């Protein structure tokens, strides 16, 4: 086997040094009643060529092999990824390194993550960011736990029901064990979160909103911030589509205290939902409450600028059960990828691509409305929106699928009350030809 370099002679020489006759003697101290009985039933070994064939045939059973367009986001977005981002991020010096515990051997990763943290704060209008979390959902759960730590004696949080349903599920999983109370805020006819009832919630540590929210609707964060702060709660915002901040006012500028979300749009493939990137930022006064890994600037013995993992006294390997989180990693290469992606776009590129997303989604939305579809919510949207159809949309959707086009997703999969409504997404990767084809199909 090509990954196992030992020759028969070498094994014998090494066993002579360790004082064993055979390899299996190395395991002699393992009690008999702990051992595997017989050989493990796993196929292989497969050669590189057979392995590739096997995966090609598996891939052929995914629609992704033949789809012409997937007009669906809902937390996972198709964006163009520049070849330089793929190419640079596959460099094995980045990819095959461990967490940068030895900073003298890992300045590449460390400067890269420091740059990621900086670009993240600029994108979100915040002051500090961590080195990333697992994904958008766990980032939101960690943000709520962080707010509960800051608020100390309070035990209740409120989350908008327009937050991605899966994010909310993960929040329940994370918060249930410690018996915190979660209140869900309703959605108004404009598709925005109704914050009017906040004053009636006791013991409120934090309120979380998503913008653009799961319906694609842009929340009025500034107005929400006033109400939330008036209720003496911390304001957490999250997102699943960071491209929106190429156009929208940043959450930080709108009054958020903690901002988190999913960064998959920035250079990561959709890859059946993972790996993604949990982006996480906050105001500077809360930096010692941050969960997760953080990189900071310092100097070396000769006074040269360099980077290290820092604020370790928050972390599990020092604080053990008193740590701010049990996390001992970040999404390393995904964070670096997002930084390289933001650097490739630049301010100018991010704004142009964001605008193109908005224009294309608006074009498609208007086209569908002309065929008789109705907007479910009146609030403004970015690159996702919800429509309800007069006639049953299912047959048309099926015909489109036969042509390799996935036309949205049924909202009732997530919200029973919105029967007959569909959530769509259009990004810069979808051509007008495809959009026209869908509109034409519905017109006929």
């Amino acid at each position, binding site marked *: 086997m090509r990954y196992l370099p030992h020759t028969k002679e070498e094994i014998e020489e090494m066993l002579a040094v360790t004082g064993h006759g055979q390899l299996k003697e190395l395991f002699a101290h393992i009690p008999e009643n702990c051992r595997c009985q017989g050989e493990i039933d796993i196929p292989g070994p497969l050669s590189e060529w057979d392995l590739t064939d096997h995966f090609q045939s598996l891939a052929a059973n995914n629609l992704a092999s033949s789809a012409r367009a997937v007009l669906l986001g809902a937390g996972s977005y198709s964006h163009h990824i520049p070849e330089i981002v793929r190419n640079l991020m596959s460099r094995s010096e980045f990819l095959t390194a*461990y967490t940068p515990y030895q900073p003298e051997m890992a300045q590449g990763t460390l400067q890269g993550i420091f740059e990621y943290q900086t670009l993240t704060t600029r994108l979100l209008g915040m002051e500090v960011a961590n080195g990333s979390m697992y994904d958008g959902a766990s980032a939101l759960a960690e943000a709520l736990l962080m707010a509960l730590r800051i608020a100390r004696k309070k035990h209740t949080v409120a989350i908008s029901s327009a937050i991605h349903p899966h994010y909310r599920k993960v929040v329940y999983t994370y918060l249930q064990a410690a018996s915190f109370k979660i209140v869900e805020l309703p959605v108004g006819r404009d598709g925005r979160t109704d914050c009017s009832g906040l004053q009636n919630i006791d013991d409120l540590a934090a309120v979380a909103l998503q913008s653009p929210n799961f319906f694609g609707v842009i929340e009025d964060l500034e107005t929400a911030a006033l109400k939330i702060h008036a209720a003496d709660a911390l304001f957490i915002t999250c997102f699943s589509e960071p491209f929106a901040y190429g156009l929208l006012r940043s959450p930080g500028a709108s009054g958020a205290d903690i901002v988190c979300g999913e960064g998959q749009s920035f250079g990561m493939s959709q890859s059946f939902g993972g790996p993604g990137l949990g982006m996480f930022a906050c105001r500077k006064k809360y930096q010692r409450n941050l969960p997760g890994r953080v990189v900071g*600037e310092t100097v070396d013995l000769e006074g040269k600028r360099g980077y290290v993992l820092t604020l370790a006294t928050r972390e599990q390997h020092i604080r053990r059960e008193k740590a701010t989180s049990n996390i001992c990693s970040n999404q390393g290469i995904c964070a670096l990828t997002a930084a390289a992606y933001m*650097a490739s776009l630049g301010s100018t590129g991010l704004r142009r691509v964001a605008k193109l997303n908005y224009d294309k989604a608006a074009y498609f939305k208007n086209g569908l409305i002309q065929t008789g579809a109705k907007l479910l919510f009146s609030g403004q949207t970015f690159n996702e929106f919800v429509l309800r159809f007069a006639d049953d949309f299912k047959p048309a959707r099926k015909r489109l699928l036969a042509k390799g086009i996935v036309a949205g997703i049924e909202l009732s999969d997530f919200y029973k009350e919105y029967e007959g409504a569909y959530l769509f997404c259009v990004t810069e990767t979808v051509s007008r030809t495809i959009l026209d084809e869908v509109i034409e199909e519905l017109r006929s």
Partner: protein
Amino acid sequence: MTHGPGISGLILEEPLLWEKGKKGRSAFSMPDQDVPEATVGIDENLLGDGPDFPDLSEVDVVRHYTRLSQWNFGIDSGMYPLGSCTMKYNPKINEKIAAIPGIVTSHPLLADELSQGALQIMFELQTFLARLTGMDAVSLQPAAGAQGEMAGMLIFAAWFRKKSEKRSKILIPDTAHGTNPASAALCGFKPVQLKSGADGILDAKTVTELMDDETVGIMLTNPNTLGLFEESIREITAIVHEKGGLVYGDGANMNAVMGMVDFKRCGIDIMHLNLHKTFSTPHGGGGPGAGPICVVDELKDFLPVPRVAKAGNTYHLEYDCPDSIGRLHTFFGNFGVLVKAYSYILSMGAKNLKKASQLAVLNANYVRESLRDVLYLAYDKPCMHECVFSDKMQQEHGISTLDMAKRLIDHGYHPPTIYFPLVVPGAIMIEPTETENKDDLDQFIDVFKDVAREASEDGERLRQAPTRTKLRRLDETQAARKPCLTG
């Protein structure tokens, strides 16, 4: 003086991203504006100016990251004997496979019948991991080992809630990973530390004394963080079960025992695996990893949702599991990592996986035997896949573990894990893994012997190390005292 592969080389300076660039440059191939501009814009009060990112050319970005990468050290650069991290070679073919277009562009929310390939990969990986550990059911959802631990602790909590039992304590040995107590605390349990015995393993008597009906059970690592197999594991798990508790096994060290140990027979109820360790997926400078959890039948209903199942010849996602601890990830976990691990298992087959463990244990014992005259061996007994020394012999010359670790860098080696586990003061934990050949081990051993000799002959050289790197030792105290987290 013996030389490792490390010599001074071409090291290029590179500023921070925003210290270069000019407004108007671009590294992005802009798609056509093939639709008219939207006539209705977004309301003024919601709009911003966009972030202040640097504008760079394609060549600017390429040189930036190429230079950064040259300051980094990965497995492909050389030996990375970082104990408890299993830094084995990451096969190239697995990267290519995970990037096959029909796999990498899959949207996670399509109907099951449109994602059969992806679901089959997950189902078969679950099956393989169950067979390898001896456990009955698997969830691939946890995104990392620490999230796997958390899932395990949530299952503990759910199990006792269902039985209407109130238990609040959990036994955790002093040889545990730091994440273990943190994960337990996150789920509301109070860790009670168990002392390992004089021989580095747990004595069943210690467990008998502390295990009671207020304790949910035990969380242990086997082989443990001293690289030793917990030989009393059957007695320990029997005691815990006797008192109505559950046993969590941290499987971070699975690379020592593939095809050798059946964890269900050991009495383990829940364990996680680190696919980025044992199953060769790249660590990515910190992530992403994957930390699947494996459970016995009795706990199957508590696994996270959704679950991947098979009916006839088709695969589907199951959501209707009322006892489940719920969802842990936005979608199904780090799928791209799962693909690479599945590909690795098929490349190896059962026979080579077992061989890999045997050779990993051989390499560790070979290093242990070869360095025992120059480094103090914390526990003088055969080890599994890693061995733990300390700086006890060097201390009389005023040389610490850190000094020796930094000196290894000058010779082109990533240092071992240092100052862990905590039960060994000044620990030096070496895990060579099976992918290092004997020549490379011999070179490493010779270099480490020289470093140990330098400790008595030329201590200042070690205290100044590293001297051949781009940067010398960094001031971590200043970094923490006055945090500067953004530029």
